[in-house]
Every structure is written in C-alpha cells, then in structure tokens.
C-alpha cells in the first residue's frame, strides 16, 4: 500500500502533475498486490515508453508483461474512466424519461426539411452510445429499414434502443402507419433480444412519445428498465 510511499508526499504536497511518469507509475502500482512497484514501472516504461502508451495497451498483453492482473485492471480503469470523463464533460444526455428523449431528438431534427428516421443505442444507464439515420428524403421499404436496424443493433451491441422520426410539415401525432411500423420493428428487435424503449415523433409544433401516450400496446409490453 502507498501509505508511506516516498512519492506520495510529492504527489500530495506539490500536486498531481509534479511526479514524473516513472514516479507516478511507481506510486500507482504500489496499490497492486504481489508486485514490486519500482521494477514493474521500469519494465512497463521499457516496453511502452510512456504512461499514455501503457494506459492504451491491451490489458491481457500488459498483464503478461508484468505478471499482474491487478495492474492490468488498473490501467483499463484509467482508460475507461477517461472515456466517461470526456463524454460527460461534453455534456452527453442520459435519456431516462420521455421528456429527456423528446428534448434530445428535437435537437437532432431541428431544421430538418425532409422526413428522417433515427435509431439510437443506449447503455444500461440510458447514455446514448451511438445513433444512425435510417432513411432520409424518401422512406425505404420497411423490410429494408428492419435490416438496417438489425445491422445497427448487432454492430452497436446494444440491448435497448430509441427510435425517432419527424413530420416536417405535420403534427407530431402518429399515423396508423407509424403505429404499424413500430409494431413490426418491435417484432424484429425482439428476435435480437433488444427492447425498444420509446418511439419519439417530432412534429412541426411539438414532440410525441409513443410510450407516454400508450398508443402502441406492443411498445407498452416492452421492458422499460426504469425509463419513465
């Protein structure tokens, strides 16, 4: 443990950036069990040359380099937390309610003159991880859209998605065709073990949540995972 580590004083008294990469690595690795921090820091810097490269190394290969799963987990944590830090600092929304979703998709369709459909993948905390436009200008055949949706779901490895489309010159209220398409898309998604959380429609004068209004029974039967 780093309780009495010589570099801890420098870290605490002079600030985080004060220790060199070697000193910082030694301090960090002192929290890993069954490891000589100095020797492991030397070995990692010899192989990778810099702290950034170490934190960007493949975890399994890094674990083999110094024989420590603890260290590999620690560097992967730094890499993952960095991604989340940047994402959050850039103001990414979590769509935890129909209100959030309507706000998010209203932004996407601002100034859109033609009809578009967008699918967005969310992680388990409803953070949007990726989104794709399924069609623009002219709607494709639904079968082709389902194929694109399946492609998106598989490549983004998600188990929950949002759909949204716009009515550039009409109200946000869904047409019978919108509801029927939603039912068919839900059926296609269920084969992939993926839930449709909500289908948002952005009209000329407002936004509409199909989950909120309970206009599609199949959508109501989908798991909500706490979405309100």
């Amino acid at each position, binding site marked *: *443990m*780093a*309780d009495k580590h010589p570099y*801890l004083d420098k*870290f*605490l008294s002079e600030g*985080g*950036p004060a220790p060199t*990469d070697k000193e*910082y690595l030694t*301090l*960090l690795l002192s*929290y*890993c*069990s069954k490891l000589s921090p100095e020797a492991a820091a030397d070995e990692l*810097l*010899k*192989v*990778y*040359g*810099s*702290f*950034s*490269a*170490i*934190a*960007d*190394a*493949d*975890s*399994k*290969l890094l*674990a083999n*380099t110094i024989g420590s*799963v*603890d260290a*590999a*987990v*620690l560097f*992967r*944590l*730094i*890499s*993952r*937390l*960095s*991604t*989340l*830090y*940047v994402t*959050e*600092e850039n103001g990414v929304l979590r769509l935890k309610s129909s209100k959030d979703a309507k706000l998010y998709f209203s932004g996407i369709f601002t100034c859109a003159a033609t009809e578009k459909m967008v699918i967005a993948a969310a*992680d*388990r*905390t409803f953070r949007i*991880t990726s989104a794709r436009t399924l069609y623009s200008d002219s709607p494709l055949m639904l079968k082709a859209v389902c194929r694109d949706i399946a492609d998106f779901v598989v*490549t983004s*490895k998600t188990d929950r998605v949002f759909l949204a489309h716009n009515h550039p010159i009409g109200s946000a209220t869904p047409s019978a065709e919108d509801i029927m398409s939603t039912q068919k898309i839900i059926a296609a998604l269920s084969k992939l073990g993926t839930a449709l959380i909500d289908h948002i429609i952005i009209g000329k004068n407002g936004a509409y949540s199909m989950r909120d209004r309970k206009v599609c029974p199949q959508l109501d039967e989908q798991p909500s995972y706490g979405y309100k």
Partner: protein
Amino acid sequence: MADRPVHSGHRQRMKQRFLNYPPEFMYDHELFELALFYARPVVNTNNSAHALLKSCGSVSGVLSSDISKLEKIDGIGRNSAVFLKILSEGVMRFLAKGCEDMVLDTFDSIRSFFTEYFSDADSELMCIAVVDASMALVNTVCLPYSDVISGAIGHRELAELLIMRRAFRILIGVYHPLGCGFPQSDDFGITHSVSELCSTLGIELVDSVVCCKTSAYSMRSSGAFSFGR
C-alpha cells in the same frame, strides 16, 4: 470445515469480467467499486461506490473532486480519497495526449494524429487506431513493436483485440524513435501481415504510417503498399 463466505472470489470475478468483456458492459458504480478494491482490501465497496456517485453526481464529478470532499463521503475515508485522486491523475495524464474527437479523413490528419500519439514515447511501438465509417477515431491500442515482429503477439492475439474493439476499419502506426521516417523491411512485413489478417476478418486497413521523432510516412499516400481498396 469452515463455510466459504458467500462473496468469496467476488473481487477476482469482477476483475476478470472487466478484462474479458467490453468496458462499457460495467455500470459507473461498478467501476468505482472495482477502483476501491485497491484502497480497501477487505470491505464491501459497493455501497461506497454508490455513495461516491450520489455525492459527486457523475464520474467526472468524482474525478474532479478534491481529497477533502471525497474523504467525507460515507465509507470512503482518507486512504480511498487519496487513491481516487491518484487514479484521477492517471486519467488526466492519459487525456493530456489529446486524441479525442479526431477525424482522420485526410493524410495530413492521419500523420498528425500518429505524430502526436507517439510524441512522448521512447520505445518502438505499434498503434492500431480503430475508426468508424466517417473516419472518426473510436479507440486505439498500443503494442510493443518488438513483440509484433517476433511473433509474441501473433495473428490470434491481433484478431482477438481487433474483434474486442469492434473494428471494421483501422489504421496502423509504427514508431521508431531513432528511425529516419522511412519504412524498413520489417514495417512492410507488419503491414502485409496485418493486411492479410484484416482481409480474413472483413476489416478495412486504411493506411500504415511509419513515424520517427520528426516525421511520418504514409504508405497509402506514397503508394508504397497496395491496400486493396
């Protein structure tokens, strides 16, 4: 014989899960639960992780908080607060590389990216950069060049890490700190080997860039290698 505790092996299982699956499969509180294992070797850290996020509001909130705030959070204490600050310093050092939000859609941007990526390194390295359909950088992985050349990191390992990173389109960068910025026979060998592997896996290899301290050489822009597409 004494009963094994119900949660025996929980920490090892969590660590293995974190290493074996894409990192986004873990909740934010699980990341801090995992982090606190290092500062609190025995106790259950799940509740403390929840308390951290509740008190600081988000991952970035935890990483930006100072020690005096963190140590007052229920179940954290001085040791954990200091460790979290050390961890957040690692995040800041990693981010200082400044490669987020890059779009590598021109030869100049590709060369600049790899030059910046390798700027603080003193060892021979190979970087695989995964990009999406619009050439926006998705993620990177850094490998010791000597291990790739020697075969210690073979096709199997490369395939595994490409698939784990969901790569459909990649660029590779090779760095020789003492090199002259022109590819050597080993660089062509690596490019050929990765190209063959990518072809098998249905991954597009966009470019292979050889860098030294002062310059970067794109094999695609110079026509030094046939990339197929």
